[in-house]
C-alpha cells in the first residue's frame, strides 16, 4: 500500500489531499495511469504531466522512478516558495 499525497491545485482537482492506494505499479508513471482512472477529478489533475512534479518518500523524483518499497508518493505543481 502506498500513501498518495496531493498539493495545491492537484489537491483541488483530485478532491483529496491524501489517499491510501493498493497498487503493484512498478513506477510513478504506472501509478499515475491507475490514479487517472479513480475519478474525473483525478483525470483532470493528471491531464498535463508537464505541469506536475513528484516526490517519492519526500525526495524529488522523475516519472520513471521505481516504486519498490516506496511508502509515500506526492504530486504537486512546480514549487513557488521564497
Amino acid at each position, binding site marked *: 500500500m502506498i500513501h498518495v*499525497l496531493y*498539493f*495545491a*491545485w492537484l*489537491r483541488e482537482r483530485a478532491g483529496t489531499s491524501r489517499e491510501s492506494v493498493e497498487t503493484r505499479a512498478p513506477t510513478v508513471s504506472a501509478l499515475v495511469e491507475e490514479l487517472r482512472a479513480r475519478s474525473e477529478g483525478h483525470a483532470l489533475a493528471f491531464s498535463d504531466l508537464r505541469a506536475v512534479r513528484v*516526490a517519492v518518500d*519526500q*525526495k*524529488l523524483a522523475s516519472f520513471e522512478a521505481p516504486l519498490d518499497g516506496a511508502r509515500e508518493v*506526492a504530486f*504537486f*505543481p*512546480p*514549487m*513557488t*516558495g*521564497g
Partner: protein
Amino acid sequence: MEVRVGPEAFDPGAELSAFVAGVAGAGAVVSFTGVVRGDGGLEAMEIEHYPGMTEAAIAGMVDQARHRFGLVAVRVLHRHGRLAAGEPIMMVLTAAPHRRAAFDAADFLMDYLKSRAPFWKKELGPGGSAWVAAKDEDEESLDRWAPDRA
C-alpha cells in the same frame, strides 16, 4: 535552530538583531526578507507546504550553502498558512568573513527556496483566488549555481 517552518508571524528586525549578535567572527551579514506585496489589489496569500519534506529540503539547502560559501552562520525562516499583505513571508540570513560569500549564499538559498522547497502560494484578491505560477526565470536563476558553471 537554523531552519524554522511554521504558521507563526516573525519580526525580521528581531531575527537580524539576534543573528548579528551571535556571529562575532563574521564581518558580513546579509538578510533577505520576502514580503506579501500589496499591489494589484492583493489582499492575502495562502501558503501550502509539504510537512516533513519542507524541513528536510531546506536543511539540505542550508548545508550546501554553508559548505559552498564557507558561512559562519546561516538561518532560514518560512511561514505557511494565511498571510495578509505587508506581512513577512520568509527570511534568509547569512554570515561570512567577507561580503561576496554572504551575498552569494543568500542569493543561492533564495534561488533554491523559490524552486525546490515544497511551498505553493495562492493569491487572494477581490476577484477570487489563484495559484501563483512558477516562473521560467526562477529556474534560469537556479541554473546559475550548477556545478559546471561554478
